[in-house]
C-alpha cells in the first residue's frame, strides 16, 4: 500500500497496514459466533414451541374394557383427551406408524414379534402441568403413561440459551479485541505522525480535523477487513450448515436459518466500521489532549 499524504500533511504511513488483516480475522470469528447465536436461537424457539407442546400417551392393553366397562380403554382415553381443554390434534398411531417408531430398537420385523405393545396417542398440549391429566386418564385406564416434551424442552432451551450467551459473549469479545486493535494501530500511527500533528496543531488544526482524518482511514480499513473476513467465512458457514442439516431436520429446525444468517452477516461490515470510527475518534482526541 503506497504512502499518501493528505491536504493537512498527514501520511497514511505503515503503522496501520495490518489493521485490515486483524479486523478480517475478528470478522471471521464474529461470523461464526453470529451463526452459532442464530442457530441456537432458532433451536431454542423450536424446542419452546412444537416440542414442548408434544404430548404422548401410552395405553397398555388398549382393547381391554375401561374401568367403567362402557368402552375399550383406548376409546375411553381418546374420548377423555378430546374432551380435555388444552389438548388438540389427538391422534392414535396406526400400526404402521408404531412399527416405524419401534424399528430403530426392534428391527424391521417388529410386527412379527407379536409383542403386547401399548397403543400410542400423540397430541398437542397447552394445558400446563400434565399431572392432573395423567391422573384422569389413569382413572379410566389404569397404567396409562402420559409424557410431555416440556421437561426435555426446558433442558434443551437452557442449553441453547447457554450456547447463545456464549456466542454473544464471543461477539462482544471480538468487538473489544477489534477496538483494541484499532486503538493500537491508531496510537502507532499517532506516534509516527507526532511531529506533523504538533505542527498543524500549532497552525490551528481542530481536534476534529485531525481525529476525523485518522477516523476516516481507520473506518475504511476496518470496513475492508470486515468485508474480507465475512466473505472468507461464507464457505465455512456453508460447510457447517451442511454438516448440521440432518440434525436440524431431525429436530425440526426452521428452514430459514441460512437466510437469517445471510441477512445478519452484512451487518458485520458497518459494525466494524463504526467500531473503527468510534475507537479512533476517542483515541486521537485523548492523545491530542497530551499535545497541548
Amino acid at each position, binding site marked *: 500500500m503506497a504512502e499518501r*499524504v493528505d*491536504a*493537512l*500533511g498527514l*501520511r497514511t504511513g505503515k503503522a496501520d497496514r495490518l489493521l485490515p488483516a486483524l479486523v478480517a480475522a475478528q470478522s471471521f470469528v464474529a461470523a461464526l459466533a453470529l451463526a452459532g447465536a442464530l442457530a441456537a436461537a432458532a433451536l431454542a424457539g423450536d424446542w419452546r414451541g412444537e416440542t414442548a407442546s408434544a404430548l404422548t400417551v401410552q395405553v397398555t392393553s388398549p382393547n381391554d374394557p375401561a374401568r367403567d366397562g362402557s368402552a375399550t380403554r383406548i376409546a375411553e382415553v381418546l374420548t377423555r383427551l378430546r374432551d380435555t381443554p388444552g389438548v388438540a390434534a389427538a391422534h392414535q398411531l396406526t400400526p404402521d406408524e408404531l412399527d416405524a417408531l419401534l424399528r430403530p430398537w426392534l428391527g424391521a420385523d417388529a410386527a412379527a414379534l407379536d409383542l403386547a405393545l401399548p397403543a400410542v396417542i400423540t397430541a398437542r398440549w397447552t394445558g400446563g402441568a400434565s399431572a392432573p391429566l395423567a391422573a384422569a386418564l389413569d382413572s379410566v385406564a389404569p397404567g396409562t403413561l402420559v409424557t410431555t416434551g416440556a421437561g426435555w424442552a426446558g433442558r434443551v432451551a437452557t442449553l441453547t440459551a447457554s450456547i447463545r450467551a456464549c456466542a454473544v459473549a464471543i461477539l462482544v469479545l471480538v468487538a473489544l479485541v477489534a477496538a483494541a486493535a484499532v486503538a493500537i494501530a491508531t496510537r502507532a500511527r499517532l506516534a509516527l505522525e507526532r511531529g*506533523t500533528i504538533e*505542527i*498543524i*496543531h*500549532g*497552525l*490551528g*488544526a*481542530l*481536534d*476534529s*480535523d485531525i481525529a476525523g482524518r485518522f477516523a476516516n482511514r481507520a473506518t475504511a480499513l476496518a470496513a475492508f477487513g470486515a468485508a474480507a473476513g465475512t466473505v472468507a467465512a461464507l464457505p465455512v458457514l456453508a460447510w457447517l450448515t451442511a454438516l448440521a442439516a440432518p440434525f436440524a431436520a431431525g429436530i425440526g429446525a426452521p428452514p430459514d436459518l441460512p437466510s437469517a444468517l445471510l441477512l445478519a452477516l452484512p451487518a458485520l461490515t458497518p459494525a466494524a466500521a463504526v467500531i473503527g470510527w468510534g475507537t479512533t475518534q476517542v483515541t486521537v482526541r485523548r492523545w*491530542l*489532549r497530551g499535545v*497541548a
Partner: protein
Amino acid sequence: MVRFDDVWLTYRRAGPPGEGDPEVLRGLTFEIPAGGFRWLTGASGAGKTSVLRLMTMAVRPFRGRISLLGADVANVNRREAAFLRRRIGVVYQDFRLLNHLSVYDNVALPLRLARRAEADIREQVFDLLHWVGLLQKCHARPPALSGGEQQRVAIARAVVGRPKLLLADEPTGSLDEEQAERLMLLITALNQAGTTVVVATHSVALPRRYPAPRLRIADGRLLEEDIAGASGGG
C-alpha cells in the same frame, strides 16, 4: 491585544507537582496594544522562547493571566484555542516545516486548515513565494533547501494567513544580510498594516537598526520595558 499579568511558568519535573519545578518565567507583566511592535530581547536561555510559547498557547502559565487578541487564554476551550491560533502567525527558530510536503504545500497549510478555496490558496501562496524568492523551488522539499531558504518558507507560512499577531523567534538567524533586510521590511509592512508583531532575538544590532519598543528578559524576569524611541506603534 496581548497582555501578560503576573505570569509565571514552570516546566514539570517528575515527582509531585510544584515541588522543585524550575521557574522559567517569573511574574511577567506587560501589554502590547493592537498594531504594536515589540522586540523581545535577552540572552539565550533567558526565557524569550517560553514567552512566545505562552503566546501560541503551546504551554499554559503556572500562575497569572494571559489575554490574546481579546481572549482570556484561561477561558478558551480547545476549539476556540485552535481558531485563535489561526489568527497568530509564528516563525519558529527551528522552522518546523513538514519535510514530506513541498514548499508550496507547506505554505498553503494554514489556508487549507481555514478551508479556503484552492484557487485563492494558489494565488496567495504563489504571491508570497515570489516575494520570498522561492517561486522556482515551490515543488522542492524542505530538506533540499538551505537553512536560509527554509527560514523564508517558514516566514511565508507564518504570514500567508494574514495573522493579527505575528510571533517570530530569531527569524533572521539563518538569513544573510539581504534576506534579513527583506524579512524586516515584510515584518514592518505587516505591522504598518495593523498586525501586532513580537520578534524575539538575542541580537543587539537588529533592534538598533529597526528601533521599536523592547521587552528585555533575563533569568525569566522582565528586566525593563523600554518604550522609548518607538517606531512601530504602541
